[in-house]
C-alpha cells in the first residue's frame, strides 16, 4: 500500500483536552498515523480529543470511515470528540455522512477548547 500523505501533531489544550493537528490527506493509508496520534493524545487525564482540520487537504470515504472507528474508540473510553477548522466543503461532507450527529463542530480552536474543558 502507498505511504500515508499525512502528518499529525499532538499538543495539549488545558487539563482535559488534547489537540491533533491533521496536515495532509485523510485516506485509508492514514489509519496507523491517526491511531498513533490518538494514543499519544489520550495519555493521562484527557477527556476530550480535538481534531484540527485547518490543514486538511484531501479526504476520501475511507478517511471518513477512519473517523467513525476513531469515534467509537473515543466513546468507549468515555471521551468526547470535537473538531474545528473544517472548510465549508468538509462541513458539508460531515453533513452528508451524518458524522455531525455525533461529532461537535466548532469554528475556532478557542471555542473547541472552551467546549472541551467545560464538559
Amino acid at each position: 500500500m502507498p505511504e500515508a500523505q499525512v502528518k499529525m501533531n499532538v499538543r495539549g489544550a488545558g487539563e482535559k483536552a488534547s489537540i491533533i493537528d491533521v496536515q495532509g490527506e485523510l485516506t485509508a493509508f492514514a489509519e496507523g498515523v491517526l491511531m498513533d496520534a490518538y494514543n499519544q493524545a489520550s495519555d493521562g487525564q484527557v477527556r476530550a480529543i480535538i481534531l484540527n482540520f485547518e490543514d486538511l487537504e484531501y479526504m476520501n470515504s475511507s478517511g471518513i470511515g477512519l473517523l467513525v472507528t476513531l469515534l467509537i474508540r473515543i466513546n468507549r473510553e468515555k471521551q468526547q470528540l470535537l473538531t474545528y477548522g473544517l472548510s465549508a466543503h468538509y462541513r458539508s461532507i460531515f453533513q452528508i455522512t451524518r458524522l455531525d450527529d455525533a461529532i461537535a463542530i466548532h469554528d475556532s480552536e478557542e471555542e473547541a477548547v472552551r467546549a472541551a474543558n467545560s464538559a
Partner: protein
Amino acid sequence: MTEQTPRDETREEEKQKEKQRREPRDAAYWARYAETLKVTGVAEGATNINVEGRRAVGPLQGFGKLWQKTYRVSLKDAEVTPVEVIKTWKENYKDFWPEGNLFYAPLAGITPGEVALISGSLPGGVKLSTGVMVLYADDESFSLMTPEGHPFSGWITFSSFEEEGTTVAQAQVLMRANDPLYEMGLRMGGHKMENEMWRKTLENLAAHFGVNEPVEMNLVCVDPKLQWSHYRNIWHNAGIRSAIYTIAAPLRWRRNRARQD
C-alpha cells in the same frame, strides 16, 4: 512564546478565507448534500417505494453491532492497473453481482450523488426493494451509502490499489443493522448471505480479468453495543414495506381498474 499582533491576526483571517474560497482537490468526488434522496428515472422492473424521500444513513445512525468487513482479491498476473479495475467495476457493477439480486444502475452511471435501485431478497425469501446513493467516486475507489429502511446503515467502499507489485481489488463494508429485526436476521444467516454475496462479486470481478484467486475476508466487530436509541428505525424497514407492497398488489390493480372504468 511570541504574542500575536493585530497584523498577524488579519493575515491568519485572510489565510482562512482563502482556504474557504479554494475548491479542494476532492470536491468533485463527493455527493452534494441533500436532505433526502431523489431518484431520477426508474428502470423497468425496479420499484421505488423505499428510496425516494428517505434520508441517507451512515454507521452512526444504525441499531445493531458495528461491523467492518473487508473482502479482497489479488489480481495476480493480470496486467491491469487500479484505475482500470475501478473503471471496469463502475461500468459493469450489476454484472458482477451474484444471481438473485438486481442492481438498477443510475442513468448517469456510478457518479457522486446518483441513486441506484436494488431488488434483492432477505433470509426467508422475503423480496426487498431498496437502493443506494453514490456517496463518493474517484478513479481508484467509489462508495455507496444506504437509505433509511435498508437492511444496514452505513457505506461500502470499493477500491483498488497496488500491493507488492500486484493489483488488489477490495470491498469494505462499514455497517450496523438498521433496526432490531434486521439485526436478528443478520445473526440468523444474514451475515453469511452477505459475506457470500461479496465473495462471489469479487470472484466475478477477478474472473473478468482472467484471474482465479481466493477471496480473503476480514470481519471485525468494531462496536458490539446495540444502539437502542435507534430502535424506531424499524418504521422504515424496507423488508416489511416491500412485503406489504407485494400483498397489496391485487388491491392496487382493482383500484387502478376502477379508475379506468
